[in-house]
């Protein structure tokens, strides 16, 4: 082998061509400059808001979208700034994120896992979304969280209440600000004991999917711990229109409490029909019969109308809170849209600001930098008092609200009232708690 024909000039030319050839694919993928998926290259950054715009949760999706739009305005320095004024972190200056103006695209989850994945995929691949936020179902949240993990995108969950989202299905790229079924149960059990006594027999109707199962497991364990007995647990199909066949057997079951582990239209229908069956007028075992709805929502309470009156449940947040952050958000939202925000709107708004703040503090949009900035992050001023984004499972820990249907509503938004703000310490649990076991965050995936 001879190198006699290889000149110095030839070597440089060959190296330059080879180098350009190797670099070309990388150059054509703009995001690869920074080593992560959808790295913003211009003067804007795109967020993807994936909410139910059709289907039975469309009203919740619409409210989430309103809040997300408001968050983008505040990030870009428009409007009154909302919670940016009360947020304990002062990294956000109202000039977008890392100096880039925030834009957004939206997708329709249809409250179906496959449709939600498809719309998130489209926003990531076609629109260059760097973060996905939103949703009103745990099935959707788990599916989209998995997709974001695989794609190297940050997922800031919306309304998802199943233990699994930050339990067995937790992912390093996924974060949940909303509370979960365990926390609802931990907050509710002492209030239920005080209100209805410790010798109660509970009959559960449970939506037959991931959220219903974990909700039932959590509330049954918590109420049994305060002395209640679980008489029966009946799984009901999703979107059942008529619950009469499931409600009728309760009358002679010996139960004196009905726990409705149902959400959305199912909650509205089951509660309405339970009231029609006269359950709340009954007296069993010498006690007044009671109904408990572990997860409340303002929009569902409005759908159930007067049937929610006096019924106890829990919420992540409510516009009636009087801390500065809640007041600022309710004012911004109320003045813009003429109605108070729901708790799903609140969680989406907060999640969007938290993501933006994490980027600012990390100094990058790189998902791994954002993950590092969010893990173990403690903040205040966004409702619910001091909050911790726990590093072990990416679950936010904060105060939980126990609510009751307003007995004498004074206006159309006066459907629920705050019974108790349960302190954070009472709803905390170990990351390896059996109800959350089997999950592994895995490694951060920057994609690209």
């Amino acid at each position, binding site marked *: 082998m001879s190198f006699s024909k290889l000149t110095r000039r030839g070597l440089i030319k060959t190296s330059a061509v080879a180098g350009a050839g190797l670099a070309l694919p990388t150059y054509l993928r703009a995001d690869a400059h920074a080593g992560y998926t959808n790295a913003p290259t211009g003067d804007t950054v795109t967020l993807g808001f994936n909410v139910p715009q059709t289907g039975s949760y469309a009203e919740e999706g619409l409210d989430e979208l309103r809040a997300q739009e408001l968050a983008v305005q505040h990030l870009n320095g428009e409007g009154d700034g909302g919670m940016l004024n009360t947020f304990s972190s002062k990294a956000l200056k109202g000039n977008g994120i890392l100096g880039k103006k925030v834009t957004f695209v939206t997708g329709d989850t249809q409250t179906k896992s496959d449709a939600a994945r498809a719309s998130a995929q489209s926003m990531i691949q076609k629109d260059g979304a760097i973060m996905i936020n939103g949703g009103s179902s745990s099935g959707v949240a788990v599916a989209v969280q998995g997709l974001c993990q695989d794609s190297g995108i940050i997922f800031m969950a919306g309304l998802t209440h199943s233990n699994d989202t930050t339990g067995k299905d937790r992912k390093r790229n996924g974060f949940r600000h909303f509370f979960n079924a365990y926390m609802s149960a931990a907050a509710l059990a002492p209030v239920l004991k005080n209100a209805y006594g410790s010798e109660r027999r509970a009959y559960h109707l449970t939506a037959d999917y991931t959220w219903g199962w974990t909700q039932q497991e959590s509330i049954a364990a918590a109420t049994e711990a305060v002395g209640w007995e679980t008489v029966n647990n009946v799984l009901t199909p999703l979107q059942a229109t008529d619950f009469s066949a499931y409600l009728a057997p309760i009358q002679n079951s010996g139960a004196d409490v009905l726990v409705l582990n149902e959400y959305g239209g199912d909650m509205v229908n089951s509660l309405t029909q339970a009231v029609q069956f006269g359950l709340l007028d009954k007296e069993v075992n010498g006690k007044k019969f009671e109904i408990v709805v572990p997860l409340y929502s303002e929009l569902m309470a409005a759908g159930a109308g007067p049937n929610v009156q006096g019924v106890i449940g829990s919420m992540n947040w409510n516009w*009636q809170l009087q801390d500065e952050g809640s007041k600022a958000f309710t004012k911004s939202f109320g003045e813009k849209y003429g109605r108070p925000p729901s708790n799903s709107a609140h969680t989406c708004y907060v999640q969007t600001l938290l993501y933006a703040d994490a980027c600012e503090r990390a100094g990058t949009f790189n998902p791994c930098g954002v993950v590092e900035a969010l893990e173990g992050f403690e903040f205040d001023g966004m409702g619910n008092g001091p909050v911790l984004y726990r590093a072990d499972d990416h679950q936010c820990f904060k105060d939980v609200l126990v609510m009751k249907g307003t007995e004498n509503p004074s206006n159309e938004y006066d459907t629920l009232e705050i019974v108790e703000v349960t302190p954070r310490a009472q709803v905390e649990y170990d990351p390896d708690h059996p109800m959350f076991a089997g999950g592994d965050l895995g490694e951060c995936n920057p994609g690209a």
Partner: protein
Amino acid sequence: MDAILLQIINGLDKGSAYALIALGLTLIFGTLGVVNFAHGALFMIGAFCSVTLQKILTISTISIDETQKDFLGRPLEVKTPIIENWFGPDIGGAIINWSVPLAIVFAIPVMLVIGYVMERGLIKHFYKRPHADQILVTFGLAIVLQEVIKYFYGANPIPTPAPDAFRGSFDFGALLGLDTALAYPYWRLVYFAFSAVIIAAVFAFLQFTTFGMVVRAGMADRETVGLLGIDIDRRFTIMFGIAAAVAGLAGVMYAPINSPNYHMGMDFLVLSFVVVVVGGMGSLPGAVLAGFMLGILQSFASMNEIKAILPGIDQIIIYVVAIIILLTRPRGLMGRKGVMEE
């Protein structure tokens, strides 16, 4: 025993809704030969007639109450229904309270017109097309109708309560001298009685009026009736309107049982088709019989004792029964020879 009794009563009101929808479907199929997938949407529109009348009756004047605050701390806007201003709070309040029964009067002309417009405007153009085309166009129409309702009323269920007089439940246990409670909501009993009246009225109309006789003759042999110089098409169009009104009335009275939402029609549609097929295509008594039978069977399948032996049976019982009946009686329970067989 009491549990069985309760599930029979339970099945009757569910069966009432199935029977009313299936009756309308069969009327349309028997007269016009059209497989109407928009029929569930007519049920839904009926329920929204209740919602609409409630909204009309609660149109309010707004006054500012400085002593109360809204959610932003501004003086509260107090709404007073105009009807209460006109008739006083007692009579006005009672009219609003009875909005669902009053909606029957409101819904009949509305549903007749909707049925007439649907038939003349769209469906008549598909009479000579294959059933697959009819299914596609009526299914598309159903989606359009539900999206229109969603646009105007939103996706959330809208509470539409029954009159206060019918709130609460009736204890069958006490009536029958049983020790156990067998409470059943008053409004569901009203719904069952209402359905029985509507079904009887439709049968009486077909059986005892000249118009009904001609329609029955047309259902049996359309060509011959036409040759006698009778404008059978016009009568069939009117029957479409009546079928729409029957579905609508089923929806009006169902509103207090399930808060109406835009997709409630789809929830009933598939089951109602199964009811029609089990009852026998084109057979009106078959539709009613199958409606009640499947309603009661579905209630029994939801019993905890049954589900403990066969988990999930409540979800599939109707289809299992449909398969068994179609295997043993291919024309359904009371199907006529020659219908859907050419």
